[in-house]
């Protein structure tokens, strides 16, 4: 009884704080205006749907600040106080305070179904001769984990790099690496799960997503990532509220992710 009382009192207090904090019950979200399946300015991405779900739970309205999700994104958005929430970052992200993970996905191989390649290991010898597409970032001290992993195995001659940024003047810039498989530009691609899942579904040629082993290359190169929402460091009040909504709305969140074909590597969603 008393716990229920304190919890409802807490909720009332939280709502009050929320109203003060987010002026007129707005959920201020920073998002990329052209980055399906995650988000776009027409609010067609799964992160847009999640934002709507969260806002509904808070009794608030979603407002967006649009900024390309590249280097400087956090600084120019959350950091510049243009918004209070970013809908998706790795859970270990350092630049912001992250919520509990709401999904776990991983890099997957994308192949044409008619090729029947069924490659499920980074150590499959065929990766040395097939043409493999990887997501690349440019000379920014970083690369996508499968790109690192294949290079570590000395596999470089048959690799084709596709920019994570893509051509921003076109719709859904990162989709080219998936289209490349359908068009036989490459035999297979190693692609971040949500991007792979969404564009594979849109493909006119049947494509298959395959998980691969290992999940981590030692000493520590992971291919599977927990994804969280993020708020400004120090904004524990909002983070705690989001955490509770993530728990409470588990089923609805899963349904949205399923709708977008996000391959899940946790207990809640579908295997790829």
């Amino acid at each position: 009884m008393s716990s229920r009382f304190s919890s409802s009192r807490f909720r009332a207090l939280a709502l009050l704080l929320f109203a003060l904090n987010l002026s007129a019950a707005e959920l201020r979200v920073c998002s990329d205006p052209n980055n399906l399946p995650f988000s776009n300015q027409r609010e067609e991405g799964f992160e847009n749907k999640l934002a709507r779900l969260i806002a509904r739970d808070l009794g608030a309205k979603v407002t967006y600040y649009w900024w390309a999700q590249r280097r400087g994104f956090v600084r120019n958005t959350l950091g510049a106080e243009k918004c209070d929430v970013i809908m998706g970052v790795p859970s270990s992200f350092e630049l912001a305070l992250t919520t509990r993970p709401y999904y776990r996905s991983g890099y997957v191989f994308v192949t044409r179904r008619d090729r029947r390649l069924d490659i499920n290991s980074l150590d499959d010898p065929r990766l040395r001769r097939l043409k493999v597409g990887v997501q690349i970032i440019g000379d920014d001290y970083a690369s996508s984990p499968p790109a690192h992993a294949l290079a570590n195995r000395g596999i470089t001659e048959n690799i084709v790099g596709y920019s994570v940024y893509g051509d921003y003047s076109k719709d859904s810039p990162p989709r080219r690496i998936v289209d490349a498989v359908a068009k036989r530009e490459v035999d297979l691609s190693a692609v971040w799960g949500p991007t792979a899942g969404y564009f594979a579904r849109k493909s006119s040629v049947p494509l298959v997503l395959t998980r691969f082993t290992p999940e981590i290359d030692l000493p520590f190169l992971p291919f599977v990532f927990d994804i969280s929402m993020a708020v400004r460091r120090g904004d524990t009040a909002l983070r705690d509220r989001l955490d509770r909504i993530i728990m409470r709305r588990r089923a609805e969140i899963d349904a949205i992710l399923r709708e977008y074909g996000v391959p899940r590597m946790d207990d809640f969603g579908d295997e790829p």
Partner: protein
Amino acid sequence: MRCDKRLAIITIVFTIACDMPEQPSQPAGVAKHAGSGKAIIPPAAAAPEDGQWVRVQKDHANTRFSGLQQINLSNIDQLKAVTTFSTGMVRGHEATPLVIGDTMYLVTPFPNVLFALDLKEPGGATKWVYRPDPDPAAQGVACCDVVNRGAAYGDGKVIINTLDNHTIAVNAATGEEVWNTKLGDINRGETMTMAPLVVKDKVLVGNSGGEMGVRGWMTALDLKSGKIVWRAYSTGPDNEVLIGPRFKPFYPMDQGRDLGVKSWPPDAWKIGGGTVWGWISYDPESNLIFYGTGNPGPWNAEQRPGDNKWTSALFARDADTGEAVWAYQLVPHDVFDYDSVNESILLDLELGGRKRKVLVRPERNGYVYVIDRLTGEVLSANPFGHINSSFGVDLKTGRVRENKTKEPKMGRVVRDICPAAPGTKDWQPSAFSPRTGLIYITHQNLCMDFEGVEANYIAGTPFVGANVKMYPGPGGHRGEVTAWDPVAGRAVWKIRENFPVWSGALATAGDLVFYGTMDGWAKAIDARTGTERWKFKVGSGIIAPPMTYRGPDGKQYIAFLSGVGGWAGAIVAGDLDPRDATAALGFANAMADLKKATTRGGMLYVFSL
């Protein structure tokens, strides 16, 4: 599994040396004298001393030397601020102003506003303002700070590059746009930050954006119309690099067909970098232009086995046709982020009793290269800072002798790599005085550790990279001014500075050298001894090379543009959180104390006696 292990891209954490002297401007060197031999500016590449400052480099030789001597060692203590002008912008100001006739031209960082100031009016009244209104999205997709390194002038037009890849010519008298040519696509990560160079009837420009996987190029535009005359890519097949029958590189490593393709895994050259965001020199006698290219991508060098030509390389090209006459890859298969975009200073030297036509390059990898500018032969390559990432340059093969134990590798901890990623010297241009025979190099003294990985993300995609920590090199200071004797191939004296010296330098016939510090001191030193002779505290840190001119009143003026920023100063210009280990590729963390030393804001300061 839960990814609760911390992984990072690049965390350049700076260990602040607390025991550093406040103003460590003491020359500390072997001997306090001028150059040992004869070094002159090639007459054809020198600028007549007419009191103007027509190009940011002063002359085609890139010396940043002025023949004006009204302000000199005997009266420098009387130098006073006479005029200031606010640009109204807060990002990094790297552009040296131009003075043509009675007008000063000043281009700002994004949104790249061009101001014309009437020097006849007291206080320099604004004559006109040209606003190119670049695409605001350019800020979001641009790498690094949104800097601009200056305007160019020719045929009655002032020419600027905008961050969103337009080269624009403006009527110098009226401020009206004459032509406007789009050269690259911001939507593919391309930007433009370098200063154009006018050579005869052409404007030469290059692109930026290696961090985004952009393929580098140099483009010549017709000065009259703005039409593209030629474009030379830095990677790819010979016909796109403009390598043809005239191409005669000095070293066997640079000889062969289509090396811009063959020295990469298939197709990797298409995203290989080699952008052209630095300085161009021009030798009218040989009709050659000289410029260096940026480093290769992607960052993980194991993804790109091979020399990765023509990244981190030096090109000599025919100024009219763009044909490559020779090339020399300064850093084959770069693994440290050592771009080769630094200035080539054209000099005629007496070396070993022979007159040599050379170019001198204080390179990011820590060596001052003296190169025969007609053949591409390296005559000497001596260190001007602390280096352990390599063991010198083999003059027989032209190759850097790499220290494999310092090579960053994913998942391996590598400590004490010197110089750090910004190199012993970054873009900030040196100056040369023919009166002392010395080159004045403003630079860094930084080392770094590579360790661990951290998860980050771009466009919704998690990725991992190296975790880097930067810290001061031997001595505990982060910046230096080195007076370099190009004939003897050694430093004559050095000045230590607390922060990296990101301003570049100006040398004058008054035997003074001017430079600025990131904490906002405009300084003048004795060109022969390095003794500090004058200083003035400006509002914001200085990262633009100073210049000098003779005003309509016949007096000599010195101009400093202050406005901290750039890679080194992004922590202030971008108002970054010092706790953001990954901000500005980590350099922000390296400069955590800069926020206490200066604040942002673009302001021009003009000094005279």
